[in-house]
């Protein structure tokens, strides 16, 4: 059953991709959706068995790499962390598959799309079910590749190509760091097995552990789109909307979070890494929220909101509240998938318009989509008792409850971010649904509520966005809950849930909620009742500067393009010219051939045809032979028995004889 969870999406992907011509569009829809739904049902049973009954499963499929002390096997490990995240992944993925049936109904490449989607799910499952870092890395790379393919799904569009390249190269940067981290882990522990590593961590030098943790963090930063490796995520909104929902909101970006959650025993022994993670996480949350404030692309706003929420998760990890981070990950998967799918429904029914400035007044035309978007937004901005509230609010309380510098930093930035989040969420709602219509009349006439294949996923996700947190928060993050058993490790010194729950001033506890409400009210007021203020503000030069600064995403892309990318290209050119076509060419193909020809010519020159010269050669040969035979007596080593020495003799012979002119 456990292996079926992983293999079913893969089989669906293979059938849809390789036999797409045979099974047809409907066939591939049917096969992939059935596989995904079956897999989700099995994952539900696994959640009951592993999570609720508390019996982790370990499956070893046999050895894969055996090389001296490195022994890696195909093993899968289903513990509470795996099944919790797997539940979110598979549910979101199944719903998005169903949604895509309608969303891509007019696309000519349905089989390819569904194949990619299922392959992505399989990769993600491999990633979260892997029993060692190596198997996890395969899943990691698989979702990286599929992410590239999916962003580049409309491969004729240059923007999509560029976004895909950006996403892939940026992730490669992170993967490089992470691979070095794996090397370091192997050098330290002699194994890549979770169980071996985690049981040895307490005995290892703290500096070394910090190094490993920071290297792993590098990979997580790229995959989870945190500063400074975030800029691929907004770009990848070029992909079809279901892809944005599945990969770039609900699942793929949580891979980095999963890596850090899984490595919690490593992180816990490195205060430095935790501090760095907290700082990066809070900065990312704040930065992305302010960027999202003034974006005009519907999907980009939600993308920045994703980065911001990922920042929250990072922050929770940095505060070593891994269970809260996991709850936020799962919650976020549901409401962010809902938001993206809702946005997709809007875009689809409104003549593929993505610019929020050209929408407005859609509440009359798309009441259901409006309702689910509103639910998603409310959940996102942590309205009390909706799903997002249970994790996001708790993260901020825990940050305050640390009573430390990093906790305070996280709390302040996180609270401000909560306000800004509310503002941009309601800005989106206002601009798309509430304000006066700004689009073309034809678009309004053609706009229509989506059909049942879209409504069902939206409805289910909306229900999850409302109730999931209420039902599961006590299980995941309740005081004293032992749900996670050994899968997440929180060092006893770092447990601060008691302070957070019982000792904080109610004003502090309510502060994020108050800020959220203020932000939301402000957005509705500014964009519906008094738009003159914003128009007036952007007419001043300061307002213009702020607008272009935030709309330009702090000019991160500009800085990257000007300094890093061009320097990288220059470096690449130099390396290619000086090393590849220079040094290696000289030593390798060209140089070696030349050396052998010269040696041959020089040896041929020795053949003079004069007998006395030959007599000299005979004598020299005799003497060297005598020397070789008696060398063990003279210098205490046998020169013939060393095969390496003989190779050196020949090499030096060639070198000595190779110069073209004497």
């Amino acid at each position: 059953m456990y292996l079926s969870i992983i293999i079913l999406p893969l089989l669906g992907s293979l059938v849809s991709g390789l036999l797409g011509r045979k099974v047809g569009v409907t066939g591939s829809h049917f096969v992939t959706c059935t596989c995904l739904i079956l897999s989700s049902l099995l994952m539900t049973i696994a959640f009951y068995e592993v999570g609720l009954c508390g019996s982790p499963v370990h499956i070893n499929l046999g050895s894969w790499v055996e090389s001296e002390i490195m022994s890696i096997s195909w093993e899968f490990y289903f513990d509470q962390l795996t099944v919790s995240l797997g539940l979110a992944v598979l549910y979101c993925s199944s719903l998005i598959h169903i949604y895509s049936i309608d969303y891509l109904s007019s696309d000519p490449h349905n089989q390819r799309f569904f194949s990619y989607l299922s392959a992505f799910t399989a990769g993600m499952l491999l990633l979260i079910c892997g029993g060692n870092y190596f198997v996890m890395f395969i899943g990691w790379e698989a979702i990286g590749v599929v992410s590239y393919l999916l962003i580049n799904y409309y491969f004729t569009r240059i923007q999509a190509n560029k976004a895909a390249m950006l996403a892939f190269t940026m992730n490669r940067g992170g993967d490089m760091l992470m691979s070095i981290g794996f090397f370091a882990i192997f050098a330290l522990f002699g194994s890549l097995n979770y169980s071996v590593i985690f049981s040895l961590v307490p005995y290892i030098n703290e500096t070394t552990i910090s190094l490993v943790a920071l290297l792993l963090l590098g990979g997580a930063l790229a995959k989870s789109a945190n500063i400074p490796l975030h800029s691929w995520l907004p770009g990848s909104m070029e992909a079809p909307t279901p892809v944005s929902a599945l990969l770039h909101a609900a699942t793929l970006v949580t891979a980095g979070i999963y890596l850090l959650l899984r490595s919690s025993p490593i992180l816990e022994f490195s205060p430095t890494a935790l501090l760095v993670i907290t700082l990066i996480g809070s900065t990312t949350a704040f930065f992305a929220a302010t960027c999202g404030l003034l974006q005009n692309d519907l999907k980009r706003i939600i993308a920045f909101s994703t980065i911001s929420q990922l920042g929250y998760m990072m922050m929770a990890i940095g505060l070593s509240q891994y269970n809260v981070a996991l709850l936020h990950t799962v919650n976020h998967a549901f409401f962010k998938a809902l938001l993206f799918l809702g946005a997709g429904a809007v875009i689809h029914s409104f003549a593929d318009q993505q610019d929020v400035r050209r929408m407005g007044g859609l509440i009359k035309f798309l009441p259901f989509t409006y309702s689910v978007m509103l639910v998603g937004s409310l959940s996102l901005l942590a309205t009390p008792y909706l799903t997002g509230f249970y994790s996001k609010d708790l993260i901020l309380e825990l940050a305050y409850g640390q009573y430390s510098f990093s906790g305070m930093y996280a709390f302040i930035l996180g609270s401000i971010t909560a306000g800004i989040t509310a503002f941009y969420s309601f800005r989106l709602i206002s601009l798309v649904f509430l304000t006066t219509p700004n689009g073309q009349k034809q678009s309004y006439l053609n706009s229509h509520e989506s059909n049942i294949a879209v409504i069902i996923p939206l409805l289910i996700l909306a229900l999850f966005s409302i109730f999931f947190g209420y039902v599961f928060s006590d299980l995941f993050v309740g005081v004293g809950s032992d749900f996670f058993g050994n899968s997440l490790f929180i060092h006893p010194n770092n447990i601060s849930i008691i302070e957070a729950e019982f000792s904080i001033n109610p004003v502090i506890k309510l502060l994020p909620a108050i800020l959220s409400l203020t932000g939301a009210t402000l957005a509705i007021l500014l964009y519906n009742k008094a738009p003159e203020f914003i128009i007036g503000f952007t007419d001043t030069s300061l307002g213009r500067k702020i607008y272009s600064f935030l709309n330009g995403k702090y000019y991160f892309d500009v800085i990257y393009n000007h300094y890093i990318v061009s320097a990288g290209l220059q470096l690449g050119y130099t390396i290619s010219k000086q090393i590849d076509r220079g040094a290696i060419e000289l030593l390798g193909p060209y140089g070696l051939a030349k050396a052998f020809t010269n040696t041959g010519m020089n040896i041929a020159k020795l053949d003079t045809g004069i007998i006395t010269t030959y007599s000299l050669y005979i004598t020299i040969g005799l003497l060297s032979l005598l020397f070789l035979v008696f060398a063990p007596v003279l210098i205490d080593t046998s020169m013939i028995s060393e095969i390496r020495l003989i190779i050196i003799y020949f090499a030096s012979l060639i070198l000595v004889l190779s110069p073209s002119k004497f």
Partner: protein
Amino acid sequence: MNLSIILFLIGILGFILNRKNIILMIIAIEIMLLAVTLLVLISSYGFDDNVGQTFSIYIISIAGAESVIGLSILVAYYRLRGTISLRT
């Protein structure tokens, strides 16, 4: 023993260093052979072993045969080319 080694060196040097005379070369080879024979004789005498002395007689007779072959080749060569100089 020193005598035989010096003789052997003389033979080798004569073999290498002469530039034109092939008869000198044959003589040098002969000197080397005789030096080795002398060495064998001396050591067999030292070890009080008759096998070595018998062996040296063998070497002398074979050396004689060898020099005869060399000289006769020279004679044939001279008849063919009219010279026995090493410089061609």
